[in-house]
């Protein structure tokens, strides 16, 4: 178990190192001049000396006036001090504060949709396997759901439930007429605005998990141990139970592998519903060429995914006894 954890943590540290390096490298080695680029967008002032001053200021902020290795070291230093620069689009708020304000919305959207779609997808997938008519209805439906681009399902739900039926709001995290407070009215509004983005993330995820579990459990039911158990006269329910506990392991690994895709899905879903999470910020940052904010979003997404991966690893150890006893359960 120590070895398993050690390897995993090493991989995560290397990943973080690589990600930060990419984050540092791209603005510096891409063709074009990001600072000049940013200023042409921002400055309405055509006074040349003022632009030069801003240019110098931002070059200094990026640290572009130092030798490369020094730039790299100071990038790490400021990262550990929690300095991610100042947002241009929401000037003068520091990028860190902008992102910290958005995080709760992301967590509120992502955690329930990931967990519930995983749980429900696995349950339904296991249920559908080897039952003729369920398999013929749930499986095709799941394939269609998992082939749907996240934003399109979001757009469809927003249009149908928000505009045609008019029963759900399609923008913001709570009613524009309210200020955040601890009243039932406000909490109701928050859930009302949360439901559609949650539903679109849930549905796409559900399809993928249901298919995965269906295929896995068929494979497990064909395995020798299942046949043997059946031959011993064990009830079908028990055989399925054992098959399920084996089939769920690859699904946990699958969850770790899918995280990047799910996060990407959440980003575009937030754009559709103007939901004030990182995805929505990112769109604004791109449209305003706010490079500090883009880089900050990048780092926050990476850190979030790494943390989630780590949590999944712990869950895997709890579920799979082989990893605990030093046998190789999952290849690290």
């Amino acid at each position: 178990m120590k070895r398993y954890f050690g390897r995993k943590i090493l991989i995560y540290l290397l990943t973080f190192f690589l990600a930060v390096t990419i984050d540092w490298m791209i603005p510096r080695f891409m063709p074009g001049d990001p600072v000049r680029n940013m200023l042409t967008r921002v400055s309405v002032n055509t006074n040349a000396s003022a632009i030069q001053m801003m240019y110098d200021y931002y070059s200094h902020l990026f640290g572009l006036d130092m030798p490369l290795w020094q730039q790299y070291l100071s990038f790490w230093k400021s990262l550990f001090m929690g300095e991610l620069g100042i947002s241009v689009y929401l000037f003068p708020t520091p990028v860190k504060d902008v992102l910290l304000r958005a995080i709760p919305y992301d967590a509120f959207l992502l955690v329930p949709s990931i967990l519930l779609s995983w749980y429900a997808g696995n349950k339904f997938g296991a249920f559908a396997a080897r039952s003729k008519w369920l398999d013929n209805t749930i499986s095709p439906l799941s394939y269609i759901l998992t082939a749907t681009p996240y934003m399109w399902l979001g757009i469809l739900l927003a249009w149908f439930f928000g505009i045609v039926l008019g029963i759900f709001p399609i923008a913001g995290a709570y009613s524009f007429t309210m200020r955040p407070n601890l009243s039932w009215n406000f909490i109701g509004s928050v859930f009302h605005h949360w439901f559609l983005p949650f539903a679109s993330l849930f549905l796409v995820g559900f399809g993928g998990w249901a298919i995965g579990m269906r295929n896995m459990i068929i494979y497990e039911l064909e395995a020798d141990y299942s046949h043997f158990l059946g031959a011993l006269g064990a009830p079908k329910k028990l055989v399925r139970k054992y098959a399920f506990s084996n089939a769920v392991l690859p699904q946990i690994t699958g969850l770790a592998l899918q995280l990047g895709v799910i996060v990407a899905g959440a980003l575009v879903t937030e754009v559709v519903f103007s939901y004030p999470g990182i995805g929505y910020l990112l769109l604004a940052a791109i449209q305003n060429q706010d490079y500090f904010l883009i880089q900050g979003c990048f780092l926050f997404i990476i850190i979030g995914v790494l943390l989630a991966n780590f949590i999944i690893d712990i869950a895997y150890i709890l579920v799979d006894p082989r990893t605990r006893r030093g046998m190789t359960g999952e290849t690290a």
Partner: protein
Amino acid sequence: MSAQKKKNEFIYFSSRNPKLLAGVSIILLFLILGLIGPSLTDHDPFAYANPLGAQPPSSGYWFGTTFFGQDVFSQLVNGLRATFLVGAIGGGLGTLLGMLIGFTAGYRGGVVDEILNALTNIVLVIPTLAVLLIIAAYLEVRSIFTECLFIGLTAWPWAARAIRAQTFSLRTRDFVDLARMSGMRPLKIIFTEIAPNMMSYLLLVFILQFGGAILTAATLDFIGLGPTNAISLGMMMQYSVMWGALQLGTWWWFIPPGLAITIIVGALYSMNVGLDEVFNPKLREM
């Protein structure tokens, strides 16, 4: 079993697999639409053709027009070209890189495997889209080809992992040992002994990479980091949301692009399941 007989068997089971046939026909249909579609319409995808603005489908504009009076049909068929390009080039590149790394790691083993495996695991954990968007954000001019390139360069890890595992199980087989003893070079062993034995597997990997590249491109385009000189299905959806197609109820603007992607990717999945049944006798429904 002779190669000839095996080939016949493949054709026999392929032509009787409804999932495979349906998938292939749908893909071909959209491919033809993308190829000949643009010559069926006189309107440039970006031209403000209809002075009346957003209008529902009519005989003049088959799929209606956007808020700016652009022809949705023209945008859709031109966007389909971009979609197939991204799938073929991006997915193809992802598959090739996956093969390169998977074969090398699986066949060589040892330290090479350790290093490549660590690299694969690292790139596997990094959310692809985050990397793509930070690259795309700094590129002032983006073409479909740069999009394909970057998608391919980030999509290979799971393919490499899967191919490595397969290669691992094949390289200890007798016929590979025999080839090695007869003095065949490693590269030749990989291409003449190992790869043909997992051809079916590689085909499935390519199909999934194809679909994945399409979905990734749609996501990038939707965030506003699509090609700067072309139209794509993801960009159509982005414009429709940005210019209030939802609030105005101009459904003909945002339904076709998403529906096209869903059907294409769905058809790819269907092909995948069908091919799996053709190659794997255990899965056939008889």
